[in-house]
């Protein structure tokens, strides 16, 4: 018996612009992923990915390679041009979530997914208390009990090493690392089976980075949550990811076990990426 993936994306495409006779069906005409005639950007091209239970999938690639766009479509921040998206936990993986209604997407987003953005401004309400930020996702999932939500919020803040006495403080008073940890606590509030992490350690100093990475690793080990981790930092990927995908100009050019990809890169771009590591 083969194991079933809990998250599956098939042949996903995302383009910005309508395309023209020159570029549609002629990928060789493009300059990188950009059509010089009509200006259409092909941000993601025929992406396939699978994530299994408890595993961390790493996605690496340079700026503009389509990593963040891919993540945003997984969290329904952006619509795709075409493609299929299935979650094992949602109607037994029978519904293509990219084509599902807004209500269904909202439900999946609130109940089955957690997202941690690179910029905490996107994921948090900076002027609301930290505990309210965590409660927001639970309220969206129709929880209406203040006592229960406060208790769960404090439990999560404790898990991400934020002292309980600062729970009523707004994230705008916190350091970058603490803000990221509040975001992680918020993402975990509804015990989602899948966590999406978009460049979570970028912009943090080294000791704080280590802190946050340690936390992510602990969460994965204790809660058996599957994760997709996007980063351009290979050492982050090396530390966290079981499997890795390399994206370049909107395409997946290489994928495999993280050790294999990083130690024995096959594609020219991956080789350049690995050897340019300082």
């Amino acid at each position: 018996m083969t194991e079933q993936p809990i998250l599956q994306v098939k042949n996903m495409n995302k383009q910005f612009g309508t395309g023209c006779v020159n570029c549609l069906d002629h990928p060789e005409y493009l300059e990188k992923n950009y059509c010089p005639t009509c200006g259409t950007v092909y941000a993601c091209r025929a992406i396939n990915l699978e994530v299994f239970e408890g595993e961390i999938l790493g996605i690496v690639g340079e700026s503009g390679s389509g990593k963040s766009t891919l993540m945003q479509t997984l969290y329904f921040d952006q619509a795709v041009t075409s493609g299929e998206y299935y979650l094992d936990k949602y109607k037994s993986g029978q519904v293509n979530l990219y084509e599902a209604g807004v209500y269904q997407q909202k439900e999946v987003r609130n109940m089955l997914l957690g997202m941690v953005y690179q910029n905490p401004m996107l994921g948090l309400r900076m002027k609301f208390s930290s505990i309210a930020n965590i409660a927001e996702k639970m309220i969206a999932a129709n929880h209406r009990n203040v006592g229960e939500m406060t208790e769960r919020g404090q439990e999560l803040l404790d898990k991400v090493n934020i002292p309980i006495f600062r729970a009523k403080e707004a994230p705008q008073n916190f350091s970058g690392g603490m803000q990221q940890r509040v975001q992680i606590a918020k993402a975990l509030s509804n015990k989602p089976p899948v966590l999406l992490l978009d460049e979570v350690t970028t912009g943090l100093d080294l000791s704080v980075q280590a802190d946050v990475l340690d936390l992510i690793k602990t969460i994965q080990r204790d809660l058996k949550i599957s994760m997709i981790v996007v980063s351009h930092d290979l050492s982050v990927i090396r530390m966290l990811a079981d499997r890795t995908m390399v994206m370049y100009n909107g395409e997946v050019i290489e994928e495999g076990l993280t050790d294999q990809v990083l130690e024995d890169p096959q594609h020219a771009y991956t080789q350049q990426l690995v050897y340019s590591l300082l």
Partner: protein
Amino acid sequence: MTTRRNFAFLDENSKKEIRRTILKAIAIPGYQVPFASRELPIARGWGTGGLQVSLSLVGTEDVVKVIDQGSDESVNAVNIKKMITDTTGVTTTVHTDEATLIQSRHRVPEVPLKEGQTLILQVPIPEPLREVEPSEQKTKEMHAHADYSVSWLHLFEQIVKYGQASMHADYPVIVNNRYLMAPSPIPRFDNPKLHQNEGLILLGAGREKKIYAVPPYTNVKSIDFEDYPFERESFVGKACRLTGATDVYLDELKDEETGEAYYLINDQSYMLELLNKQEGVTG
């Protein structure tokens, strides 16, 4: 030379458009229907929404009452009443149960409405989500998807900070189990009066160009949490100094001689009726 003004000031086409808007508002309880707010001889933001609704509905048989924060005699109430009577010749009253049209700023009268009566509330900000979301397009989408979690979040934050809801007026409600609605800045003491009310309640925002409605016998529920249920302002242990009434919305005033605080019924026509009853005066 004298020019004849149209009955109820507005021209017939404007009144027809406003009445059509009102019909749509009644058909979708709690939904804000846009309308072409007309210019009036008073500035927008001074009750023009309520006034346009009143002027569009008033007929020769109507009896009109105008209140401003519980008072029939404040400058605002008197002038709006004057404008309606000067342009229509209808009779006015201070007694809630005698009126057919009641225009009010920031209060629902203490005397319950009956079938056939219409309460018109003046609204400064009709959008209950405006404070958390400045974009009209976004709030429209939120209403379309009934995505109101942010209002509960707001309430949650107040409970975390102050141990209770800190909104005293304009406390948001869910109408007919569907739309989140700003009840206009009535004290939250008045919120329960909207629920299953026998009269028709219309809300008009002139500056924001929106009309919405709570039809008779509609469910209206103030937002709350299971363990922090909605509560009205508490006047426990306080009573009106003149009438002794306790189950009404009270104003706190200061006795200039003794410096002590005392309380009076905010709804002044109701206080007058109570006093007359107590002293055996009729009429």
